[in-house]
Each structure stands twice: as C-alpha cells, then as structure tokens.
C-alpha cells in the first residue's frame, strides 16, 4: 500500500513539473554570424550535441553535430552558421508539463529542444535529456527530504544529536495496589523503544524486565518510580519504592520463591518467577533493599545484542 502511494507520488511529480523546471541552467546559444569553423570547439567545450541560433530573442534555427559533419563532407568554405543550420526546429513551450517534453524526446529522437514562450515566441531556454532526468531527481530529492522530516522515526536519535554524549531519561511513577494499570509503563516504554528503532531482542528484554519490576512496585512496594536512562550503548532501568523492603534477597532470587497474597496469585502473578525473569533479561541485576525503608532494583541491558551477555 505504501509502495503504491509512493508510485503515485512520482507520477504526480512528473505531471506537476513544467518544462522550465528542468531546463538547463547554462544555455549555449550562437549568433547567426558565428562561423562554422568555430562550431566544433563550442560544442566540444560545452559538451553539447547542438545549439540554437538566436537573434532578438527568436530562434532562427539549430546547428547540430550532424550539420557540422555535413558541412565538412561538402568541403565548403567557412561561412556563417545561418547558412548551414537546420531551419525545421521543433520547440517545446514553457507551459508544457515535463511529460510532454519526454514524449517529444521519444517522438523526434533529438537530444535537446529549445523552449519558447507560447505567447511571445521568445526563446527562454534549452532542455536536454539529461536535464529531464536531473530535474526529476532534484524534485524527488526535495520530496524525499520532506517525507523524511515528516516521518522521522527517531531511529538515529542518538547519532543525530550533536553532543559528545547523549542520554535520554524516561521517568514514570507507579501507583501502589492499582493492578488494573499494571503494565501500562512497560507498554509505553515498548512503544518508545520501537520509536527509537532498537533491536527487537533489546526491546523484548527491556520491557519484560520493566514489566516484572513494575508489577513488583504495584503488588509489594506500594508504588514508586521507574526511571529508564539510555544512551547509544546501554539501557539502565532503576525501579525504586519506599515499601516494606526485602528481608532476604537471596531467597527472592530463587525461582519459585514467592510471598504473594492470594489476590495477586488469582491474577496470574506471584509465582516466584519475577526476579528470575528480570535476571534472564538483563546483563546485570542489582537489588538494594532495607527492611522498612524500601527497595531499589537496578537493571542494565546492553543496546547492541552482540554486546549483551544473554
């Protein structure tokens, strides 16, 4: 679907562009009294295959490499270009869309066309095949630039910031006992990490660890804060509460150990796998806890999956 819209956009662009949008920026014209002996060096110097002969803003004719060769073969004496030029000149008008110009290139097989104003008939420029291609590319480039700005994904956020070191801090606060909103923070964090274009494995580990820690805050900690600090290499998650604290940290790290009340178990939590999951998802897990004061859980996850331990 997206591809289709992009094609339409390109088509639209071709129709929208007018011949003058793509015309050559530098125009080589000859005056009627330019000598035939000069033509070769002019065409060669400017890397063109033909040049119009213009006087009083009107195109009198066109002289091409072909005309020059014919003049050489005929062995005639040097003369003004006026006498050797092609008179049957095909023009493009300056209000024609670029598509018409493309059709004319196909139909006549010429390499370039003079452009004239439809009303006055005055010469306004030249367009070559190369100019058509370059004009389209220029327009596309502008267009893509606009798309790029409008759909900035944050994927290169850390590299885009002009600083010696860039850090991003996301802070959340969690209400205690409000299990209905359990996981809201991990869910928000997941969307943010997607926005930043992190590796799916890193996102997965980060949200699982955060989710488990968030549920602990709600169930045991009586609420608290979740802070996620990241830079281009690592994510630090710090989960803090001022709850009852953990009397024996070694015990809570044992798979299956749980002090969960029934209401928690009924919801599918409290099976004693929370810290085990956090451990499995992190490079390092530190628990600092004081009974009666609270608990701080620090989780470190490497951003590059290659650097990650797990």
């Amino acid at each position, binding site marked *: 679907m997206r591809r289709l819209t992009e094609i339409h956009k390109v088509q639209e662009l071709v129709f929208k562009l007018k011949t003058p949008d793509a015309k050559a920026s530098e125009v080589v014209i000859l005056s009627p009294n330019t000598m035939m002996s000069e033509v070769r060096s002019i065409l060669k110097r400017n890397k063109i295959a033909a040049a119009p002969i213009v006087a009083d803003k009107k195109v009198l004719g066109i002289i091409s490499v072909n005309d020059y060769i014919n003049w050489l073969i005929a062995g005639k004496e040097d003369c003004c270009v006026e006498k050797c030029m092609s008179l049957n000149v095909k023009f493009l008008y300056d209000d024609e869309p670029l598509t018409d110009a493309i059709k004319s290139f196909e139909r006549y097989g010429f390499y370039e066309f003079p452009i004239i104003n439809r009303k006055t008939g005055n010469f306004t420029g030249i367009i070559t095949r190369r100019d058509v291609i370059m004009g389209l590319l220029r327009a596309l480039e502008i267009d893509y630039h606009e798309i790029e700005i409008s759909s900035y994904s944050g994927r290169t956020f850390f590299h885009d910031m002009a600083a010696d070191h860039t850090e991003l801090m996301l802070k959340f606060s969690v209400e205690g006992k409000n*299990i*209905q909103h*359990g*996981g*809201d923070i*991990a*869910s928000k964090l*997941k969307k943010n990490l997607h926005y930043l274009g992190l590796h799916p494995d890193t996102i*997965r580990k980060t*949200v*699982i660890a955060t*989710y*488990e820690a968030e*549920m602990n805050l709600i169930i045991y900690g009586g609420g608290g804060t979740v802070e996620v600090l990241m830079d281009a290499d690592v994510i630090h998650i710090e989960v803090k509460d001022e709850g009852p604290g953990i009397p024996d940290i070694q015990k809570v790290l044992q798979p299956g150990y749980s002090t969960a009340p029934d209401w928690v178990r009924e*919801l*599918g*939590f409290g*099976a*004693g*796998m*929370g810290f*085990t*999951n956090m451990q*499995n998802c992190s490079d390092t897990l530190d628990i600092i806890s004081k009974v009666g004061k609270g608990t701080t859980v620090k989780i470190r996850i490497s951003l590059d999956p290659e650097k990650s331990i797990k």
Partner: protein
Amino acid sequence: MASLEQPILLKDIQKILSADVILDEGWRREKIRRVYCSDLMSDILSFGDSSSLLITGLINPQTIRTAEMVDIAAICFVHGKIPHEDTIEMARNNEIVLLSTRYSMYEACGRLYCAKMSKSVDLP
C-alpha cells in the same frame, strides 16, 4: 509449551477448538508456530513470541498486557470465558486475536496436540 511441525493457520486452530472469535484482527493470515498454555504471567513472559498462541484461563487485563510484552499473536480463553470489554479493547489496540473455547485447558491442549503437534520443546 510445544512447537508445531508445520505452522498452522489460526482458522484451523479455531476449528480444532470449536472456538468463538471474540476479536478478529486479520487472524486468518496468522500462522501459529508455537502453543503455550499457562495461567502464570511470568511463565508467559519467558516463553512467548510473535507466532505463538497462548491458551489460558485468565481473562484479566494483565493477560493482554503480558501477551503484548512478548508479541503473542493470539490468545484462546478456555471454559468459554470472555473478558471484559475494556480488556478486549486493550487487545484490539495491540492487534492481538482473541478466541474463546468451551473446552477445558486440558481438553483444548489435548485436541490441539492430537491434531497437529509433534515434538515437545523443553522449557528454557
């Protein structure tokens, strides 16, 4: 947890489980490679992935949140349970398919096992 020898379409799983579709988020396109059966959220967190079906008896919002965390594509509730409208909405926001079967968890798993599954996978 079990892996399927051949991935199967969700619509075939729906037939095998005679399940009602609570929420259809383009589910006919979904291919299921693994089936998990658990009522424990932490278990689900350590197994799930984007081409898996979760069979569970829990219909609270945390089931959806947990599935969201590990990109589970579809959930089938057993015993004909249907979650609250808010919970369904949460699944819709996360493009998770919801099915409901009248079978018990044991029977749902048994039927799927007989129909399509081959090798069991050891728990991590």
